[in-house]
């Protein structure tokens, strides 16, 4: 795993409107540090849009374009092409939530990825529409309680990284604000490449997941260390690298830390563990199958 | 204003033929307007193309309901009797048919030419529109051959020389021809 010195500059100002202890806010802070000041952001409706600030204020030290919910990737593509046509070197980055990515924004994202549009897309996944009070999205995991899945979500979580990798984009990766060096290294790598680059960042949500104000990073660590959310990257949709070796704590520790899983039976937890084990085995197999080429 | 309608089937080149004829008239310094109902590009589907020619800018934008002349690329289309019925009195009907013996319709003057045979010989089948344009120009005398040839050259999507040859052959086959009928 590469270690990157954390950039000094803070492009995300304090005093924004996130909940105390929000992992999304922390992740945004690291992502902006990694992107640097020659960046223009595209943000759809999301908790991030709220954090960006109500007009005429802005919590970001780079330009922000708040676009319509389903248009993030299309707007970013238009921006990147506009800067290229004007002969300007600018990094275009999208900061979107899981609803804006997995659900309503997927068509535009898939279209842009197929065209290999030149931007970095970061999905901050808090596993539901948290900005509107915790309604399920297609990123909500099986069994999780949300205000629109009162008996727990009956279907699986959509695997967005696999969807993006299937487009054979140059770079797709998972990350987590509990592992800031890993996150920054991935932003750094994404920046060295062109084309559509995608980061899927898991961000525990204090009210939505039913965790304490100071618990989001602990819960995030459990997601990673239980192998439920492994940290890895995929080059060109083919070459998988696991960037952090998880210790393999039982998934029950992760689940029992959150109120949204309070109703799960032992059998349900056993099924989730089985699913996590299978997923991990599949990932390890892929990482072995095609060794990564050295990054340029 | 001169109003002409071309009836054909998808693949026979009615639409492109109409644009070529428009081009030929345009080259004589006239104002033209050509259009065809799109969406009928399927092989064999009936296609109607419209052409207006005038000495001044053309303002009207509607289908041609009473044409001065009708060019028919496939004689089976005449099973629809409304086509001939729509011709203006004294109008000319140009039909792609093997025999010169097509019966005249009331006051309609009929010119037939075996455009299919000519086009086949030139390897153009099923495109017969350029051949029929030659017949039209020859019999009607409304557009000079050299302008039509230029327009065919510029407007043919492929095989320009073959299209020109077929057009010229039909032109001379019909040049000065007294139309059959009234």
């Amino acid at each position: 795993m590469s270690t990157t010195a954390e950039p000094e500059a803070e492009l995300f100002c304090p005093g924004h409107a996130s909940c105390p202890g929000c992992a999304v806010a922390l992740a945004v802070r690291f992502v902006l540090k990694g992107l640097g000041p020659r960046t223009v952001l595209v943000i759809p409706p999301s908790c991030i849009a709220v954090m960006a600030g109500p007009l005429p204020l802005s919590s970001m030290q780079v330009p922000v374009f708040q676009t319509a919910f389903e248009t993030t990737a299309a707007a970013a593509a238009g921006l990147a092409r506009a800067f290229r046509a004007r002969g300007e070197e600018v990094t275009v980055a999208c900061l979107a939530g899981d609803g804006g990515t997995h659900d309503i924004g997927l068509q535009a994202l898939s279209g842009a990825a197929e065209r290999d549009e030149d931007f970095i897309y970061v999905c901050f996944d808090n596993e539901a529409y948290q900005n509107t009070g915790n309604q399920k999205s297609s990123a909500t995991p099986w069994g999780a309680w949300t205000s629109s899945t009162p008996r727990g979500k009956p279907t699986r979580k959509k695997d967005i990284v696999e969807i993006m990798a299937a487009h054979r984009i140059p770079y797709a990766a998972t990350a987590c604000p509990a592992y800031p060096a890993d996150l920054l290294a991935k932003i750094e790598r994404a920046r060295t490449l062109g084309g559509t680059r995608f980061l899927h960042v898991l961000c525990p949500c204090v009210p939505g997941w039913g965790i304490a104000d100071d618990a989001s990073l602990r819960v995030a660590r459990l997601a990673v260390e239980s192998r439920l959310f492994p940290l890895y990257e995929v080059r060109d949709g083919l070459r998988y690298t696991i960037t952090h070796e998880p210790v393999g704590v039982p998934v029950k520790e992760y689940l029992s830390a959150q109120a949204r899983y309070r109703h799960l039976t032992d059998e349900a937890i056993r099924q989730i563990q089985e699913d996590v084990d299978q997923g991990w085995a599949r990932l390890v197999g892929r990482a072995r199958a095609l060794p990564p080429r050295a990054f340029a | 204003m001169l109003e002409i309608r071309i009836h054909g089937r998808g693949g026979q080149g009615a639409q492109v033929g109409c644009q070529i004829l428009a081009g030929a008239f345009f080259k004589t310094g006239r104002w033209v307007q050509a259009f065809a109902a799109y969406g009928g590009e399927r092989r064999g589907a009936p296609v109607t193309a419209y052409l207006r020619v005038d000495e001044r800018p053309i303002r009207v934008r509607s289908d041609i309901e009473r044409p001065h002349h009708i060019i028919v690329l496939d004689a089976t289309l005449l099973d629809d009797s409304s086509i001939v019925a729509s011709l203006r009195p004294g109008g000319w009907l140009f039909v792609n048919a093997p025999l010169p013996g097509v019966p005249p319709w009331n006051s309609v003057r009929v010119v037939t030419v075996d455009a299919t045979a000519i086009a086949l010989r030139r390897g153009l089948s099923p495109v017969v529109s350029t051949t029929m344009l030659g017949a039209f120009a020859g019999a009607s005398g409304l557009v000079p051959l050299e302008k039509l040839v230029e327009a065919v050259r510029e407007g043919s999507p492929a095989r320009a020389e073959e299209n020109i040859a077929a057009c010229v052959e039909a032109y001379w086959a019909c040049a000065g021809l007294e139309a059959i009928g009234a």
Partner: protein
Amino acid sequence: MLTQVATRHTRILLTGDHAVAYAALRARPHLIPVYPITPQTPVLEKLLELQELGELTADIMTVESEHSAMAACIAASLAGARVFTATASQGLALMHEMLHYAAGGRAPVVLVNVNRTLASPWGFWADQTDSLAQRDTGWIQLYCESAQEALDSVLQAFRVAEALLVPAMVVIEALYVSHTLEPVEIPDPELVDEFLPPYEPPVRLDPATPRGFGGTTAPVQWRANRLALKAAMELALDAVEEAGRRYGELTERAYSSVETYRAEDAELVIVTAGGIAGTAREAVDQLRGQGIPVGLVKLRLFRPFPSARVAGLLAGVGKVAVIDRNCSVGSGGIFCQEVRAALHAHRVTGPQVFSFIAGLGGVNVSADRVMEICRSALNAVSAPPDPILEERL
């Protein structure tokens, strides 16, 4: 088929769609995000052909939907790029959300819409409801009668839109303009450059001066934003006149928001827009030839609606026949609503306004039909409150 008529333009046979593509070429946009749809597709195909020939330097972005096309247009425009796109019917309807976004975000996008029926059921022919249904989106709307007017109007739309930071839609009719081949003068590039200065917005998305665009607002701010857009839109009334005049100085083809044809001393004035206006000119000439004094008021600018001009032109007229190739179901012809509202607002009570709905779904409207419309209005004692369906005449 090239004929050099003068040194400052080229006269050539073009369809309306291809004329639009040449207008886009001359406007030198940076970016053209576009998605194909009948009957707009020839615009896209011609643009790609011009790019292939090395004439068009714009980046053509072939996106996966019209919605994304407009989203890309807006973002690129706010970054300082000149952008152009074209669509029709379902495509425009799909863009609807983003049309509002463009206007509110003050992105001066120029869009050509080919008026086509909206499904269901499917149809591919002329009908104005698609663009008229966008009347509240905050876009300038210009309706064109010919390929030449389409080309000229696209260039004028860029000038007006970019000066006011209000997006503009140029509308042409399916088939009768979009696919109709006719002589068109293409102005030389230098002439267009003289008419259309490069686009440099006062503020834009630029890392050198970080700003937030499009964030959340309090009610008072939202209202201020909307009122600013309203004020800019009102300026478009004069800006369209100025652009039409200036264009005339350079090309000898001047334009206005409203055009009249033989309307002096007319007992009956036809009011219509788009392709039917051309047919109506023919009908006016024929009726005048028979000694029947009719005239035409052609609505070119629909948004902002030139209310005072329309009311002024119709003030002394006995009868007005508005011909709509559209229908707002539950209300009637949309142009007629606007005309009646304009007369009412300006306290013009003289004219009897007849509302005719004609040519819906692309049904042919011939000069004969327009003459029948005129005769039926002239013969009527008074105008009925409900629209008159032309097919029942």
